[in-house]
């Protein structure tokens, strides 16, 4: 017979999580899980997280250099109640990401931020870092990732440049744990080159980013100077995936889940195919591309598919000296999220095929609906401790030239 000891059950501190809940409370279980696994002493770098720049858009537009567009944008924000962010063309799928409000942090976070002098996004990022348990967090914008589809290529230049200047000035300068891979106005190659030339050495800029949602061939000769410049900086170039529901290939897909599942991978599959078959890794062997936010399951498919076709049609890709899969394994890096975990053997095979021990970088994608936690890597039973440490932080330290110093405070 069991002996029953009687205690009082007290109300738990958090009863309901909604859009007003403090990030630290939303992620309290993440912090607990990190502590339980001893991750407080591991260097962890989150290579893909986000802030919602559109909330600060009234600040960003002040950084537009064109005086007429700046004036138009500032007047638009001051004179229209509830104005959407000037110039941004975000995809309509952005309205569905919280699954009808089921995932509150995916919608606007309205938690209280005390006025401590630092920007709201710095405080929110600090709260996330010390809850997820990461020492450095690389932040990307959110609706701006669709600017590659803007009908005005000038708008991509104006707004990307304004955002980059604002980010460096207001966010990256405030906390050196926060980093970015600076967005390039890729539809205008000369402006992308100018971005690299002017901002490569700014505090917190550890690489560059092509928001992948766009119809531009990454192998066009117009981009070779840009790649050469980035290679010379020694900093990686990320292809950050996104979706575009109006893409003709998605014209029949009627559910967000389907559009998101395909769209977030399709853009990078196209760019990767062009990147490899046009021999970019042969032309720029020291350039380090990172394929961001497409998950991992697409990579083994592409490796097998391209290898199979290449051996029959080598003359169509004459710059290659090795199999496509070998370039994808040795010359490419990948971020983990959203890591597909429902078929464990397939995931294990994937990690072997991409040589995860050196090529894989942890990413949370916080605060998006499919965010991941470091525990997902830590809990994989077949990885060595060194492999886990590499994926969670040391691979990032190596390719971004970061000091792998413990900076997080999981004990707040």
């Amino acid at each position: 017979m069991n002996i029953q000891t009687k205690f009082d059950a007290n109300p738990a501190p958090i009863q309901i999580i909604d859009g007003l809940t403090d990030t630290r409370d939303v992620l309290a279980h993440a912090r607990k899980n990190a502590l339980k696994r001893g991750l407080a002493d591991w260097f962890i770098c989150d290579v893909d997280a986000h802030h919602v720049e559109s909330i600060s858009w009234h600040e960003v537009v002040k950084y537009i250099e064109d005086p007429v567009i700046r004036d138009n944008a500032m007047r638009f924000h001051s004179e229209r109640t509830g104005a959407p962010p000037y110039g941004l063309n975000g995809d309509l799928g952005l309205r569905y990401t919280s699954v009808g409000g089921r995932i509150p942090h995916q919608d606007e976070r309205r938690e209280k931020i005390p006025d401590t002098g630092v920007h709201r996004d710095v405080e929110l990022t600090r709260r996330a870092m010390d809850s997820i348990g990461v020492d450095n967090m690389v932040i990307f914008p959110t609706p701006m990732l669709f600017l590659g589809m803007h009908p005005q290529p000038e708008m991509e230049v104006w707004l990307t440049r304004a955002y980059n200047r604002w980010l460096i000035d207001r966010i990256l300068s405030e906390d050196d744990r926060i980093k970015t891979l600076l967005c390039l106005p890729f539809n205008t190659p000369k402006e992308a080159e100018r971005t690299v030339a002017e901002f490569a050495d700014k505090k917190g800029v550890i690489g560059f980013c092509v928001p992948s949602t766009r119809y531009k061939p990454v192998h066009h000769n117009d981009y070779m100077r840009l790649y050469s410049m980035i290679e010379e900086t020694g900093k990686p170039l990320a292809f950050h995936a996104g979706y575009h529901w109006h893409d003709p290939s998605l014209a029949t897909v009627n559910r967000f889940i389907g559009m998101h599942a395909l769209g977030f991978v399709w853009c990078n599959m196209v760019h990767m195919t062009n990147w490899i078959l046009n021999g970019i890794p042969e032309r720029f062997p020291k350039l380090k591309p990172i394929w961001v936010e497409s998950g991992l399951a697409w990579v083994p498919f592409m490796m097998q598919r391209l290898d199979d076709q290449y051996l029959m049609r080598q003359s169509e890709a004459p710059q290659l000296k090795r199999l496509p899969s070998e370039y994808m394994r040795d010359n490419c890096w990948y971020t983990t999220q959203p890591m597909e975990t429902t078929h464990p053997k397939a995931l294990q095979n994937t990690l072997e095929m991409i040589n995860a021990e050196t090529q894989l970088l942890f990413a949370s994608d916080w605060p998006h609906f499919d965010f991941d936690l470091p525990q997902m890597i830590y809990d994989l039973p077949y990885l060595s401790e060194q492999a886990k440490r590499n994926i969670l932080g040391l691979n990032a330290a190596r390719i971004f030239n970061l000091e792998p110093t413990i900076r997080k405070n999981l004990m707040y």
Partner: protein
Amino acid sequence: MPEYKVGPADIFADDERRIVACDDKEIGIFKLDGEFYGWHNLCPHQGGPVCTGRVMSRVLEIADAEGCTRGQQYDDSQKHIVCPWHGYEFSIKTGSHPGNARVRLRPADVFVREGQVYVRL
């Protein structure tokens, strides 16, 4: 097996949910259709605080005799708790994910004795 006294059963309204701390474990207690249900506040997906999420009715999409659909509807007889981290949904009565019954919440023994609600772990 320690027992934890939550309080009088009559302070729970129908459809009410309370999260209680039983030492280091959090338990979500739900009152639904006059019955009490208890689940550990840990999502089987990534360990999220599942019991703190929205309570939503199950969504259905009914195909008619011709196999056609005319949109979606709620089934208010099936209430779900939705994990606020990633949206995993679970039946409050059975603890099962509606799309994969093998994905389940961990049950906690919640019962009423002499007008008081208890959790036994």
